[in-house]
């Protein structure tokens, strides 16, 4: 503390009052539009006029407020500001700047212009953090994408709040330094202190939550879940309340393979811009938005710059839509593009942002409006036309893209009280990893190109040509016969063939047998059949 004081006295004594030597201070910052960052320079200069800090260069409200925070912070940190106007320009002025993270670069530029930091010490520094009235520096949302952008643009050094140090350090090859306060930041920038350095990157593998071992009976459902995990297939569960639809869905992440490093980074980046605590978590995310969630809440939205929605929060993981038929059709249909392309493009008045949205959709619905149809011993109270209308909503453009259908029933009493006989998640997960390895190596052999931002190929996503090429003629003929017998569409052919491919992978076979095709067909139900 005493060292800091002496330093302050020494530096702040002279130059702050010397308005004749005009210094143009420059500090790097990053303007985020969604996950994409553009390099920005915060320039500050002492100009004539009444004492104030004026920020120009298309700042939004949060950035304009920075002036008041910085004035107070400088006062509290005993940094004198010039008795004249300080103009801060955020260049290029054409890009809109949003976020409290601009506080730190602006503060450093102002203090440099005021003579507290030698201008040459700020070369190559990019700063991101919020400055408090007391002079403290705290993390601001978006640290991870800022660090990514800084690294890509060849910034030498990134200064962030110490609490955000671990997050910024996730980007390899960047010199990151953490500061606690404005005094700290000035000392580090001036080279008087080295600042906090990040420790080794901590990879967490959060506990996978509920385990599959607790699922009693439900052999068909278990099989279906395993296939979903291996092929990444979307899944629809239909059954009365209490038959274990959400219980099963919640266990899907526990058998999914851990995320690759770069996938975990993508997930972390989304968390970062939402202002959440970020760590490198290899467990695939699981999101279960309520069925009343708006379209904007689901796919992302908001004015100016759109924010990520649940489909992006579930990127690389599972999006569980319970009571999917209660969700308005328009909202569901908005999911079609992300499911097809693995990303969401949101265009607003001031921006066009792209968020990743490679999700595995798990949807659940009741078999009829009253939810009881089919439940043993409980009569359905719906009229036939109500049931027909309800079921006709099960088929639609979105639900057509779902490969696996699972009709569920409540488990019977004797299964419920009997011993829990099922395999645990770890056992199933090991099989899933092996089967996925088989699939991945095959798809790379077939030269299947990942479309969009995907890091690895899932059987759900490869082109139908590749799926056909990897399946023998007899299996395809078998499938064609079944499709014809059931009067299904060509889309069903494609979906079934993918599932058959996955079934062979699960059993560790390269060849798709006719029996695999038969099973795949049985994983599809005529959803609008009779009540």
């Amino acid at each position: 503390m005493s060292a800091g004081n002496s330093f302050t006295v020494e530096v702040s004594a002279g130059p702050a009052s010397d308005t004749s030597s005009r210094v143009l201070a420059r500090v790097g910052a990053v303007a985020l539009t969604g996950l994409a960052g553009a390099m920005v320079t915060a320039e500050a200069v002492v100009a004539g006029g009444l004492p104030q800090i004026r920020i120009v260069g298309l700042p939004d409200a949060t950035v304009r407020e920075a002036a008041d925070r910085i004035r107070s912070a400088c006062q509290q940190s005993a940094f004198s500001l010039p008795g004249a106007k300080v103009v801060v320009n955020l260049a290029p002025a054409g890009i809109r700047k949003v976020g409290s993270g601009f506080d730190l670069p602006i503060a450093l530029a102002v203090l440099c212009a005021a003579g507290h930091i030698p201008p040459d010490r700020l070369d190559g520094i990019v700063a991101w953090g919020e400055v408090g009235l007391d002079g403290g520096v705290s993390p601001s949302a978006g640290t991870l994408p800022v660090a990514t952008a800084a690294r890509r643009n060849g910034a030498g050094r990134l200064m962030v709040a110490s609490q955000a140090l671990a997050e910024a350090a996730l980007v390899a090859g960047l010199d990151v330094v953490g500061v606690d306060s404005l005094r700290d930041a000035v000392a580090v920038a001036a080279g008087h202190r080295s600042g906090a350095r990040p420790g080794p990157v901590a990879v967490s593998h959060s506990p996978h939550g509920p385990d599959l071992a607790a699922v009693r009976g439900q052999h068909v459902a278990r099989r279906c879940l395993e296939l979903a995990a291996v092929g990444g297939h979307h899944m629809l569960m239909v059954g009365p309340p209490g038959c274990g639809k959400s219980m099963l869905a919640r266990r899907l992440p526990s058998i999914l393979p851990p995320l690759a490093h770069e996938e975990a980074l993508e997930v972390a980046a989304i968390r970062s811009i939402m202002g959440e605590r970020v760590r490198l978590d290899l467990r695939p995310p699981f999101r279960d938005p309520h069925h009343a969630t708006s379209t904007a809440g689901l796919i992302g939205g908001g004015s100016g710059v759109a924010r990520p929605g649940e489909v992006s929060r579930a990127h690389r993981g599972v999006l569980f839509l319970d009571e999917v038929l209660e969700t308005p059709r328009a909202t569901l249909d908005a999911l079609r593009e992300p499911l097809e392309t693995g990303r969401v493009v949101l265009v607003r008045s001031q921006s066009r942002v792209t968020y990743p949205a490679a999700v595995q959709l798990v949807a659940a619905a009741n078999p009829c409006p009253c939810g009881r149809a089919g439940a043993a011993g409980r009569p359905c109270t719906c009229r036939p036309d109500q049931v027909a209308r309800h079921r006709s909503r099960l088929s639609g453009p979105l639900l057509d893209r779902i490969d696996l259908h699972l009709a569920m029933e409540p488990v019977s009493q004797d299964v419920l009280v009997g011993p829990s006989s099922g395999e645990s998640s770890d056992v199933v997960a090991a099989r899933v990893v092996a089967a996925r390895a088989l699939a991945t190596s095959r798809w790379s052999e077939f030269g299947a190109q990942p479309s969009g931002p995907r890091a690895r190929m899932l059987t759900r996503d490869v082109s139908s040509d590749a799926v056909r090429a990897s399946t023998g003629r007899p299996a395809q003929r078998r499938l064609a016969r079944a499709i014809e017998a059931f009067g299904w569409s060509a889309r069903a052919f494609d979906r079934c063939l993918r599932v058959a491919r996955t079934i062979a992978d699960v059993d560790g076979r390269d060849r798709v047998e006719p029996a695999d095709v038969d099973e795949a067909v049985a994983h599809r139900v005529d959803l609008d059949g009779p009540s």
Partner: protein
Amino acid sequence: MIAADPGATTRAGGASWAHVAAAGTDPQALAGIVERAAADPRGFATDWRRALHTDDPGSAIRAAGTQAVLPSPTGQRVAQAWSEGCVRVALAGDPAMPERLVATSAQPPWLAIRGAVRRRDTPAVAIVGSRRASAYGRGIAAWLAEAAGAAGVHVVSGGAVGIDAAAHGAALDTDGGTTVVLGCGHDVAYPRPHAGPGKLFERVVDAGGALVSESLPHEPPRPWRVRSRNRLIAALVDVVVVVEGGSRSGSLVTATWAADYGITVLAVPGDVRAPGSGAPLRLLRDGAGVCGSPDDLLAALPQGIDRARDDVAGGAVPDGPATSGLVASSLPEAAAAVLAEAWPRPVTMADLAAQSNVAAGTLLAAITAAQVAGQVTRDLDGLRLCRDPHR
């Protein structure tokens, strides 16, 4: 476009009248009756009721109708709608009117017929029941209808969803064939799931069956209209079987008409606590016969048309209770046994896997094979054997 040219209108109208006339109906009389019925339904109904009590209802109703100016726009429009829908119209007293209706005095002023009506000497049975049918009820209805159809017995029902649809669907492609008695006009798509290309009603006509209605083409289904058509169902058959229905079901109306006409009524017993057992229970208490199998149904057909019964003894449906083993199927034996025990109720996939103790993957593959072979049907309710597992 055509309407803008008066000559064309006349020609179009003339063509439709010619079509109606070809069916053996006096077009002017029909137009008059239709006009009267559309403009003054209450007065017309009164006249019709009165006419039914005369010796020659046909002449009386013609007299009531010919008061109208002919051919009127309403009459033409209706006739054109019928003509465009390939509907023939039989007026009361015409030879085209089904003889059974004439014989039972259930005869309506006119009957609009699409498809082919069976001759009087074809044995016929009505299989009726609730729209809100259980899987059990639908299964039984289909079982009875298919066996009856295979024995050459014509199956008549009301074309509603539930029991009616199951009966029509099962009898479609059999020797006996099926007739739908609509509770609305031919141009009304009701019930919606059965109207339209490839749906039940079109399939009935394509398979050589008939759609008949006593309503004008545009008339929507109304409770009284639907109850009134139940009279026709009862009059068109030798035996009425009530499969499932609530205690206030329309099938009780059908049974009451049947009793009036002296036609045998059978009821299929169900779970006594189920809401769908109200109508059969009441009928059984009131002395209706029990229908526990297709044999009961065929045995109830009158002596004069017992020919069907002989055919049965020859092949399709054997006599006597089922004592033999299961019909061979491509399913694993344990799974087939579980399905056979539940038949005609469906078994959910989860239950089948649990009870048959077959690995999920193997079981699912076997089910698809059985489905393709036509042994098993599957929907959201579960799996069901297509046929009686013992025959």
